[in-house]
């Protein structure tokens, strides 16, 4: 499925410049390079429109960077090498999946710490509450009413009949 999506995205991306310029561009030459370029740049953030991936962005810088990624792919660089190339210039910010390191610990583990704290708080609260709550005693009429409701026999005063 993912493979198909990537292929579809690659096809779309290939079609775009063709639609614009009406002339073949060299990047259509090698679909393998193109697919890898798209796969890599989907993992990277465009610095100009920060909520878009490098693969999706139409910003000029994104175009330049895609060209750069394409060149690196052709040179036979591995994915981590290509990402490192961009990180060394633009910082971890270009990665949609930031690396786990001391400065990002809060980012990675913060939510779990907060969740853990909330769970501990909830358990403590429930325990304290359990000691205080007394089950209400039901009178005979209450029980009869409950039974009537459960068996589906509406009492004559139920709102349903009035409606």
């Amino acid at each position, binding site marked *: 499925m993912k493979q198909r999506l990537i292929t579809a995205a690659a096809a779309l991306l290939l079609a775009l410049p063709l639609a614009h*310029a009406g002339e073949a561009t060299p990047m259509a030459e090698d679909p393998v390079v193109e697919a890898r370029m798209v796969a890599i740049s989907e993992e990277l953030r465009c*610095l*100009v429109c*920060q909520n878009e991936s490098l693969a999706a962005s139409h910003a*000029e*810088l994104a175009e*330049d*960077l895609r060209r*750069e990624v394409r060149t690196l792919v052709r040179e036979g660089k591995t994915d981590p090498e290509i990402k490192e190339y961009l*990180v*060394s*210039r*633009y*910082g*971890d*910010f270009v990665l949609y999946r930031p690396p786990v390191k001391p400065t990002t610990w809060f980012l990675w583990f913060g939510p779990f710490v907060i969740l853990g704290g909330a769970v501990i708080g909830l358990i403590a609260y429930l325990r304290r509450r359990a000691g205080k709550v007394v089950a209400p005693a039901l009178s005979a009429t209450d029980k009869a009413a409950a039974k009537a409701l459960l068996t589906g026999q509406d009492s004559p005063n139920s709102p349903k009949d009035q409606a």
Partner: protein
Amino acid sequence: MKRFLIPLGLFLVLVVFLAVGLNRDPHEVPSPLVGKPAPEFKLEKLGEPGKTFSPADMRGQVWLLNVWASWCVSCRAEHPLLVAFAKQGGVPIVGLNYKEVRGDGETDVKKLAADQEIVLTRQRAAGWLSRHGNPYTLSVLDMDGRVGIDYGVYGVPETYLIDKKGVIRFKQIGPITPEALQQKILPLAKKLAEES
């Protein structure tokens, strides 16, 4: 009363976080290049066709590398400050003219003849400098933006303060403001000038 203290405390923490977040500019991405040697390049100078400049030529000096282009609106806003600063002397400013023709969003370089781009680049860049003043000791032409990528340029203008050993010590993203100049760039440049 006491039972409200914890939610109130949590709320205040949240407010502080959000307030800090609101006051930060998401477009200011800290550069990993600060503290690293300025990437080498060899580019043709604006005024002297055929002659090149590279950062190594500035070894032993504290200098500024300012990325600009004539199509860049913020550069125009920043420019008077640079011109005034250059008149005071002290810190030489080298201009990196970034994608002068390709970056304007109008010219399709593919339709230009091979030697046309550099001619246009020189024309536009020189024209802009003669209209608005030239604060640069020299400018170099980065027509395809490759050197820009090596410097992590993602918006023009950007300015790098480079020390005597060729290490980037500060990066200003966006136009230099009078405050940034007085409070950050000048004091740091002064300190760096005293380093051997």
